[in-house]
């Protein structure tokens, strides 16, 4: 059930790798899998159809160049089309060129993250762009919504429109614009109540707010976990208020984020920002090439490296890398690595960011993706003597018994760890041979010993 996209895709690629050229039958077969993969990544059905058609048109009859296998060729086309469909390389900035105060209107479904994103955006504009920002909540529906935005404004260090109970959203919008003109604000962020795409009355209300304030940006805030309904939401909001940009929230989750493609395809509006946490600084520019990899299950390698560099002890990591390169990786280093993994969060969420991780995850099985297990493994290593850690080969039956007793585990557990270390060393050696480029291209799958559990 949780079989990741990556394993499916790599299955297709394996099959294609052995064939000659890109003929229609091959391409169609590969695209059937791509279709399933995209649907499992929550890309909406009509959007998947268009996407597949585009890839097919481009792929069929294309010459297979040089040493590239047909499989790799299709992967590249799929990836290229995906990046284009998501908006091409690079990030698209907010458009704030208008006579100040420049209104930004935030719209979306209930709970998608509008208020939090308003706070994040305010902080970014104030701190990074030195704008004078006013936050105004037009949400008269959800209890304490206006208070929520007021508190976020305080945290962001920007002003918020004083709360006047009993006003309608339209009245609040007018008051916000008036206040902003009078007090010379650069930007006014208008946070609105969540509304369902089929709620005629509320959709009409936001239409009126838009007409009254003429925002420079109308940002549709969408949860990255959204499923097929993305189409309805995108269409309804775009028809009603003309979306100029999309914000994808909860990118810190492990959803594939196919909604990104759906949203972009239906509205035609660029995805401008992503939210990756609840804190106010968790706002990032949208990078199509990263999210393409995520949707396709090829892993957000860049994201992984960034996350890793945040938490991993740099010196420690470099030491490990040197040892790996020299092939002198020992059990002490292994223990260190376990510690780093624990620090980065659950193993499964890290694996989700790696290319080819679907296969790896499946092979690992559930038992190994367990923080408790990591702790136990660290305990086993710490019950070894210095000599044993340096040269694990000397660990025979009697030593195993002693180590097991010391760590409060069974001899089997010790065996398992030693085997894991052994496999790990093998993997290191392959990794060195493959080099950085090979790893990026072929993914972790390239490291896997065939038909064996890697850990």
């Amino acid at each position, binding site marked *: 059930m949780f079989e990741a996209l990556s394993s499916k895709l790599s299955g297709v690629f394996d099959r294609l790798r052995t064939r000659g050229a890109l003929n229609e039958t091959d391409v169609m077969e590969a695209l059937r899998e791509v279709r399933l993969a995209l649907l499992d990544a929550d890309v909406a059905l009509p959007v998947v159809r268009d996407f597949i058609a585009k890839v097919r048109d481009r792929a069929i009859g294309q010459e297979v160049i040089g040493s590239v296998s047909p499989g790799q060729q299709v992967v590249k086309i799929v990836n290229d089309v995906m990046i284009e469909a998501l908006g091409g390389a690079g990030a698209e900035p907010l458009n704030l060129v208008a006579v100040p105060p420049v209104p930004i209107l935030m719209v979306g479904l209930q709970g998608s993250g509008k208020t939090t994103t308003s706070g994040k955006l305010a902080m970014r504009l104030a701190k990074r762009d030195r704008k004078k920002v006013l936050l105004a909540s037009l949400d008269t529906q959800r209890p304490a919504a206006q208070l929520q935005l007021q508190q976020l404004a305080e945290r962001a260090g920007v002003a918020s429109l004083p709360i006047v109970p009993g006003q309608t959203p339209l009245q609040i919008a007018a008051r916000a614009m008036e206040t902003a003109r009078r007090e010379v604000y650069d930007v006014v962020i208008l946070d609105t109540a969540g509304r369902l795409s*089929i709620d005629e009355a509320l959709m009409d209300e936001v239409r009126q707010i838009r007409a009254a304030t003429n925002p420079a940006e109308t940002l549709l805030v969408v949860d990255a976990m959204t499923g097929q309904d993305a189409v309805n939401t995108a269409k309804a909001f775009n028809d009603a208020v003309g979306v100029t940009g999309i914000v994808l929230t909860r990118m810190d989750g492990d959803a594939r984020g196919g909604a990104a493609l759906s949203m972009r395809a239906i509205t035609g509006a660029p995805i401008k920002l992503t939210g990756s946490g609840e804190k106010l600084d968790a706002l990032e520019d949208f990078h199509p090439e990263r999210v393409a990899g995520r949707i396709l299950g090829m892993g957000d390698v860049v994201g992984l490296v960034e996350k890793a560099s945040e938490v991993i002890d740099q010196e420690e990591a470099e030491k490990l890398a040197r040892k790996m390169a020299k092939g002198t990786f020992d059990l002490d280093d292994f223990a260190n690595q376990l510690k780093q993994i624990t620090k980065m969060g659950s193993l499964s969420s890290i694996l989700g960011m790696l290319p080819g991780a679907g296969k790896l995850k499946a092979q690992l099985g559930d038992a190994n993706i367990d923080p408790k297990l990591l702790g136990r493994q660290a305990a086993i290593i710490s019950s070894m003597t210095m000599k044993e850690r340096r040269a694990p080969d000397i660990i025979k039956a009697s030593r195993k018994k002693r180590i097991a007793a010391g760590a409060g585990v069974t001899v089997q557990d010790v065996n398992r760890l030693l085997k894991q270390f052994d496999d790990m060393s093998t993997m290191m050696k392959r990794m060195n041979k493959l080099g950085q480029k090979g790893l990026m291209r072929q993914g972790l799958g390239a490291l896997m010993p065939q038909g064996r559990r890697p850990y």
Partner: protein
Amino acid sequence: MALGFFSRLKEGLSRSTQKLTQGLGAVFTRRKLDDAALEELEELLIGADLGTAVAARVIASFRRTRFGKEVTDTEIKSALAEEIAAILAPVARPLVIDPALKPHVVLVVGVNGTGKTTTIGKLAKTYQEQGLRPMLVAGDTFRAAAVEQLQVWGQRTGAPVASAPANSDAAGLAFDALARARAEDIDVLLVDTAGRLHNKAALMEELRKIIRVLKKQDPTAPHSVLLVLDATTGQNALQQVNVFKDMVDVTGLVVTKLDGSARGGIVVALAEEFAIPVHAVGVGEQAGDLRPFDPQEFARGLVGA
């Protein structure tokens, strides 16, 4: 302006007549249930978030019994709804409160923004009306104004609210609230929690801490752990349920926002995969907008029957 209005009106009218004629056509035209028709039905299910695997399975079993029959659109959709309702029937189980527990502790968990706090408000109203005494615990000490939000629900429903200052320890608050509830003869203790993504190990650990602390007073608490799911969520809901179930022993689901255009088909996949009870559905933002989970009605809504 006037032109815009009339052209919009015309457009709107033509759209609704189109729908009407399509609908009528569907009622009267018989069609053979062949591969193409089955594929259309499968796409209908995928479009409702059942996921490709579950949609394929449902259609496969459907094919066995009905392939080649002459049917109308309405007939076929009702039959498909039946098929799905049969998958859902075993998980349609209400949340039963045991007043003898005094209090029955309900821990409400889920990812951010799914509707936990609102659902607590709705449950409080339900219990109040049943003559039970609920108490609410403002366990989201993290999100801005989350405490105030729950306090408003307390006022709306007349239920007392236990709260602590922002950023205080939620487990400590839960502990104190349970003690207070026992002293005040409360029947149901509804514990709100901050939203958390299931892939954040530290936040999941926090949730376990709340449970550990509750158990110090009552080893059988929490008596129910509700996972609140947003109906717009796609396939990631499977991961959500999987992790929350492992970490905090979820006993049942509430599916919110079914008043929208999302059809919540992921619930079918969840029923197949985990067989966790679905207690209720949220159909609006008001206190009265909570309904028992009705598999028949849900399945019909899902396929548009």
